[in-house]
């Protein structure tokens, strides 16, 4: 157990170094998971998350909570560790992801695995411009130019590199995070931060609008919005 901890801490140290070096812009960031997730324990640990995120983990269409159901495990893990360390400022969530509350790395690994298996919200919040509108098309062009290489053709992200899955995310949430990043209230990867100097706020709105209309594979969705997580009945 101790050895596992040391390995993980070592990877984290590397991570911190990567963050603080100029290489960060080109080096992929990787959280190494050395644990075999236990979904049953993940479900039990998720109860603490569900007290705020609700058992479906679908987020709020007002943008105050993200959809985390169906998100990649490495993305979830990276955000949890960033919030735990303060790298990502989230004062109200921070105490919940400390070891004394949510548990150690094994528990984190279990809980992110569980969250990634949850079916997604079939009616996430979408941007105001419908498919085929001028703004949608403009967002599509910008997405292909700036975003597609990391976040993928369908906004599917990339687990191995901790690139978030964007499809299914609430438009309002992405807009809010973009504003925080633009105002430097949320630290993001340098390559993302650069985009805020390249693209205008309107460009961003259009890109996020396009992203919010990307279809989520039907097999990842809950049958309807009335679906309730049976693990919490």
């Amino acid at each position, binding site marked *: 157990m101790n050895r596992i901890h040391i390995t993980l801490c070592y990877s984290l140290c590397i991570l911190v170094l990567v963050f603080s070096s100029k290489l960060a812009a080109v080096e992929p960031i990787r959280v190494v998971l050395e644990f075999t997730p236990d979904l049953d324990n993940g479900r039990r640990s998720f109860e603490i998350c569900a*007290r705020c995120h609700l*058992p479906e983990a679908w987020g709020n269409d007002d943008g*105050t909570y993200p959809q985390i159901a169906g998100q990649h495990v490495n993305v979830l893990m990276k955000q949890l560790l960033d919030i735990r360390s303060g790298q990502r400022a989230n004062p109200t969530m921070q*105490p919940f992801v400390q070891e004394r509350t949510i548990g150690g790395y094994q528990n984190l690994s279990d809980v992110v695995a569980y969250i990634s298996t949850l079916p997604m919200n079939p009616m996430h919040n979408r941007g105001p411009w419908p498919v085929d509108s001028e703004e949608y098309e403009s967002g599509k062009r910008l997405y292909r130019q700036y975003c597609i290489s990391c976040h993928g053709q369908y906004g599917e992200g990339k687990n191995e590199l901790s690139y978030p899955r964007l499809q299914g995310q609430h438009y309002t949430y992405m807009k809010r995070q973009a504003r925080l990043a633009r105002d430097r209230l949320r630290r993001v990867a340098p390559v993302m931060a650069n985009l805020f100097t390249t693209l205008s706020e309107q460009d961003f709105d259009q890109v996020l609008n396009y992203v919010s209309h990307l279809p989520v594979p039907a097999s990842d969705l809950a049958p309807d919005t009335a679906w309730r997580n049976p693990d919490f009945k």
Partner: protein
Amino acid sequence: MKENTDLERRRFLQASGVALAATTVSANVATGADNNEMCQAPALNSLLRKATLPRPRGARVVIVGGGWSGLTMAKYLRLFNPGFDVILIDRQSAFVSFPISNSWLADQVDLDFLSHSFFDAANNHDYHFMQATVLGFDRETRRVYTEKGFVDYDYLVLAPGIEYDYGRIGIEDTEAQNLLFHRYPGGFVSSSELLTIKRKIHRFSGGTFLLNVPNGDFRCTAAPYERACMVAALFKRQRVRAKILLLDMNAEIRIKKAGFARAFAELYGDYIEYLSSSEITNIDIEGRRVETEFDEYDFDDAIIYPPVRASRLIEDNGIASPISPQKAANTDPFRYHLLDDERVYVTGDSRSQPFSKGGHTAHSEAQYVAEVVAAHALDKEVRWRSPQTMCFSAVDIDPLRAMSIITYYKFSDKTGEFAFDRTHLIERWDTQGGQASLAWAEGMYRDMFYS
């Protein structure tokens, strides 16, 4: 200069006639607007000078009340509009948290956990804290009056919270109200009440200990039931031979009903006697006897939590809603400003909307209202969003075990009313819930005071 002072005095008297009557200034002054001699009274002069504050660095927002709503407003106003100059006014010198105070009564956290400094909040979030009592305000000149002088505002946010309404338990006489408040404080308005309550329950040597649940929209719906559990847990641990008489003015347990009913039966069957539909109609303070509609009960000591109403600051300044039973402010339910004045906002427990009166609700609501005020300054609109109500209830101690509920609100165009939405209730109590309750509070303090 003399003319200015006169004008100022008149304005002040118009703004806060009722508040003045409660100060040391003679009643003559409050009623006779042209009594120049009385104007020389030192007490009044101090009210009529400008308060000593840093020079404004932008549009000034004055927030009255440094509770969960006011503290959150102050922080997020600065975040959403760094051009705002924010002044937070509270009559207390330090902040003591009411949420989690029941766990503190039963020694599950210490006082440091609950206590925080307004200076820390103001320093860390770059606004100014002023310790003063607000006596009134004049909306025409946009001026707030305190005993430390007046403060001019561009926007005024009122978050003064609640007051007890002893009249609704049959105590009409103000002297009796005062005596009852001092002898048997409810523990929901000032920190001295909490200290007295803790001493009471730790020193209780046996007999009947009276607790009650008020009716109406009182502060923290679950708190009186939670408190009964914490007091019972303490008596159980200290092996005090005592009965807790819990008189509920409501027909049934108002929230987490199954959970609390099970706790009363399974954990505290020997301690808690729960009586529903027990409307308190009178209290004999000296004789230590409480009267309900049909019965009378003797008690040895008590915590009396009367029904509540919005702070008198709302009513005294003529902005209470004529239809609000608890004299809440007459505001737009979605934009939070007075119906006839978009420069004055009312948030927190003086609001007119029927949201749960609790810390978390006030905190999430204030973030939204801060956005509304920031947007107003830019002539923009923000889409309405529901406050979030999150409420943990401690049930057992050593280790702390708790239940939780989270809910939102939605507005129905059909009924014209707000209703609960997306409620998630965990009525099973466990140590995970206990840990979560402390993590929740820590996160809230962190947000309002430190980061």
